[in-house]
Every structure is written in C-alpha cells, then in structure tokens.
C-alpha cells in the first residue's frame, strides 16, 4: 500500500493508471455490448455523435463506441498474449544463457542479436501475407511473441551475469540450494522490476505492430481491433469525407494508450531504481 502511495506521487503514474483503468473498463464494457461486432448494418450508417450513438456510426453500419470497446479488448488480448509468452521465452533464454554461460550463452545471444538486427517488420509482413486467413487473435499474439523476446532476454542475461559474481550466489550454493531454486530465489527478485517494465513496453510494441499490420490489411479485418478500425476508416476515406469521429476514435484511443503504457513503465522503473530515487531526493 505504501508503494502505491509513493507511486501516486508521480503525476505520470497517476495519469497512466487512470487512463489504463478507463481503457480496461472500456474493454470490459464490450461484454455488455448491445451489438454483435461482426455484423454490419446494425445501425444507420455515417451518423454524427449523438445521444443514441455516443461516438457516431461508421460506413459499415456499426456503432463506433461499442465497436471501440471490442477493438480495445482485442488489441489488449493480442498484446497480452504477445507480452506474456515472449516474457516467458525471454526469462528462460536470459536466465539459462546468463547462468550457464559458455557456448549455450553464445548461441542464444547470437540468435537474439540477430533478431534485433533483422528488420522484423518485413518478416512479419511476409509471414502475415502467407497466413493471413489463419490470423486470429491468438495466432497473431503468438507470432509477435516468437519474435519479441530478444531485447529482454539480453537485459535479463546481463542482470544474471552481474548477480552471479556477487558472493550471495556462493552463499546459496554452500547452503545446499539447487540451481533452479537458486535462480528463482536469488535472481528473480532483482530481475522482476525489469521484467515488469519490459512487459509493459512489449505490450505497447505489440499493439503498435498490430495496428501497422492491420492498416496494411495483413490481418483478419473482420475482427475489430484498434488497427482494423483504422483500416476501415481509411478504406472509406473518412478523412476526406469529413467523418472525423470515425478516424479520431482509434487514433485518440491509441495515443492515450501508448502514452499511458510508456509513462507507467518509466514511472515504475524509476521508482524501483535506487539511483534515480536518490536523484529525485536531491531535486
């Protein structure tokens, strides 16, 4: 509780926390939506925002507000799958590479370095081109996860490497503790804050990539996500036709979502980093 109180002192944390609460609430609202998001022409087309349709309606004959709740929910699902699965890979690779060392380390780090270097976006485009019709939420999330772990594996590895040199590793060994328990008990508490803030960044990255792929038409456009909403809005030339309510909904939602996620991760990692804590003290 004290931690939360301290965190709320940071305006960035307060802001992002509130925004995320609203966005998650939006996503949850989708469960009580009066409309089926996959059906078209359930409401009159191209209506301006009104009491009946808070954010207006689009050219597909869908209510934008309720469509947005589904979009947010699905984008969050994709990115959570991507974030959590890639976190799992990153922790595994980082811990094994860092603790084992030797050629295991070298091979794993070569693979993750290569993933960092290769223009992943193009690889995603190729993949998505080929498997477009199979791209449901889970597959897309997993696809992003398989390629999204490299940076964090490196970070976790370097944390382990520096901790391995500390004597408490040896103390634990001399206390008869096994390797797996040692890594979990001794190293995870140090790596956790990093893993957590990287998880948030990774979620943002996944949402961003989904939007890009969706705009290029490389995902299943019948599943509402922030990206597919933008795709339809662009497809129907909503800007040129002056239907600002349609295009602005996903744009503003994503602007707030990205800023909130980033601020959340920076405020938390700053809070947990003792060095910056001291800097704040002196200011």
């Amino acid at each position: 509780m004290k931690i939360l109180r301290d965190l709320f002192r940071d305006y960035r944390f307060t802001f992002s926390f509130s925004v995320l609460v609203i966005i998650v609430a939006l996503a949850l609202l989708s469960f009580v939506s009066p409309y089926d998001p996959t059906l078209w022409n359930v409401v009159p087309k191209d209506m301006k925002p009104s009491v009946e349709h808070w954010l207006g309606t689009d050219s597909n004959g869908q209510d934008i507000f309720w469509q947005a709740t589904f979009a947010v929910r699905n984008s969050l699902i994709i990115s959570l799958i991507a974030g959590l699965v890639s976190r799992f890979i990153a922790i595994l690779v980082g811990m094994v590479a860092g603790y084992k060392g030797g050629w295991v380390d070298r091979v794993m780090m070569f693979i993750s370095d290569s993933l960092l270097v290769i223009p992943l976006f193009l690889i995603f485009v190729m993949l998505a081109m080929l498997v477009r019709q199979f791209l449901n939420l889970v597959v897309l999330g997993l696809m992003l996860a398989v390629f999204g772990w490299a940076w964090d594996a490196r970070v976790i590895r370097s944390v382990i490497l520096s901790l391995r040199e500390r004597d408490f590793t040896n103390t634990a060994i001399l206390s008869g503790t096994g390797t797996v328990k040692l890594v979990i008990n001794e190293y995870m508490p140090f790596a956790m804050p990093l893993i957590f803030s990287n998880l948030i960044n990774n979620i943002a990255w996944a949402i961003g990539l989904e939007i890009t792929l969706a705009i290029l038409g490389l995902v299943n456009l019948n599943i509402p996500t922030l990206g597919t909403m933008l795709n339809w809005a662009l497809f129907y030339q909503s800007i040129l036709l002056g239907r600002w309510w349609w295009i602005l909904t996903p744009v503003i939602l994503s602007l707030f979502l990205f800023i909130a996620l980033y601020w959340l991760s920076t405020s938390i990692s700053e809070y947990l980093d003792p060095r910056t804590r001291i800097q704040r003290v002196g200011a």
Partner: protein
Amino acid sequence: MDKLLEVNELTKQYSQGNVIARVILTAADHVSFYIKPAEIFTLAGESGCGKTTTAKIVLGFEEATSGTIVHNGKPQTRKEKVWITEGVQAIFQDPFSTFNPLRTVDSYFHETVQNFKLARTKQEAIDHIDKKLRLVGLSYQEFAGKYPNEFSGGQLQRISIARALVTDPKLIIADEPVSMVDASLRMSIVNLFKKLRDELGVSILYITHDLATAYYVSDRIAIMFRGNIIEMGSVEQVLMNPRHPYSKLLRDSIPQADPKLRWTSTVTLSELEQEEYLRRGCKFAGRCPEVMDICKGVVPADLSVDGVLVKCHKYSDTQKG
C-alpha cells in the same frame, strides 16, 4: 601424518580472447599444500597471485586444469559437491555481498538446515541455529526476520561465520574475511577463528594479503607470487625470518602500526604484470635485489631449508651441502 585437505600439483589456466586470438594465463601453477585437522593455514600474497583461484577450486566453484584435491583421504570428484560430502564451508570478503539484500538473513540458515536435513521440527532448527549464533556472540532473537542492511559489517561477518558453522564443517575457507571490516572490529573476527580451531577443532584456510593478522592467527603459512607458492612453513619461521627475497619484500612492505618502525629503504615496482606472469625463469627475477643469472632462465625447484619450503636459487647450494 593426518591430513584434512591435500592439494597436489594444482594448476589453473585461463584463456583470454576468442577462438582466433588467445592468450593463456596461468593463475595457479602446480600449487601443492596440505591442511591438518584443527589448524589455521594461511595462503598469503598480493592480488593476482592465485590465492583466490586456489580457494575457488578447493570449494569446487571452479575446475582445475590439472592436479588433484584430496579431502580426508578421498579425492574430490566433479559430481559430489565437497561441502555436502566433506563438510567444507566458506566465508567471503564483503559481508554486504554475502547475503542477498532482498532476503532476510535467517532464511539462509533455515534453508541450510532444510537442505542438509539437520532438524526435524521448526523448534529443533531454531535451537540448532541459535547454538551456532551463540558461538559468534549473537542470538536467534537478535537476528530473526532482519535484512542484511539492518546489521553492521562486523555483525554480518560474524553471522556469515555462524552460517558456515550450521553444517558442522571440518574446514572453513575464509577469503579475505577481514579486509572490509573496520580495524576496531577486525580482531573480533580473527579471534573467532582461533576459538573455532581450539574449541571445535575446525581447520581454517585463511586467505589474505594482511601478513600481520596472518601472523597473529595462523599456524602455518604459504606465500604465493604470480601463481606459485614461493615459501611455506610455520608462521614464526616464514614471517619472523623470511628466506625468499619476495617474502622479505612483502613482509617489509606491510606498514607497521608503530611510528618507530617506519620504512627506511625504497622499493622498485613492477610495471608489467603480464610480463611477470609469462616470465620463463623465476617470476620475481625482474625486480629481485639478489638476482643471479640462473634465475632468468631456470625455474627454481622447491627446496627445503630448515623445514621451510623455499622456491629460490639462492638456497640450491645449502640443499646440496
């Protein structure tokens, strides 16, 4: 003679660089010594002399390039961890790094008791731990539930010793245990070693650069230089009357806490550490005040002079005669 630990011809080489470019450094070069039961044996030398490397190999944290280690007559194998089978424990230099700052200190004790199945009930475990803590002048109540940063360095080092005692070891390896403890508290740690030796019969491999405490606490001493033991014997003989020129230099360079014993002579310093490692003959030949021609080409043998092992050409005549 009864030997608790025997180290024979231990060699450790490190290679630096990658597959194409490689330099091999010998950190420990055919190091041999033994430790008797209830004895404090000191391995002394400056940084990079190989004393810590030797300790790590004895503990099984690193593997030797060649050589054998025998515990109580049984050779140390790769599979069996020595601290489980032979009761070897260790304490480290930096008391603040010995315990994870995010864990309570007592958790290490309970973990050890659990892992080694030293108690059946929680109360039994606490009693066992309390007994060990009392040996170092602390008690269970004083430390249960506390984190490392709630103790001073001296207290933590004593807790560290108590932790090592939980498994009732025969041998404790202490790597520079007092170098980061304040002078006013240093003796409380060193005196503990004596107490463990005299009352519990524990042997201690004391690794240090501080010859003054080594003299105070230990029975026998080996002085290392660039991977070799260059002189070994009882502390009285080695430190009060050093034979090897390097031992003399090292001994005389310890600043004595007595303004009447100020240095009068000057020293020459070596500038190229790596060069000394790679030197062919005696590694000290580059700055030895008593250097002879033979020193630069031939590695001196281990000679026995008045019961002291000396690795120096100066004494090859006395040996023959």
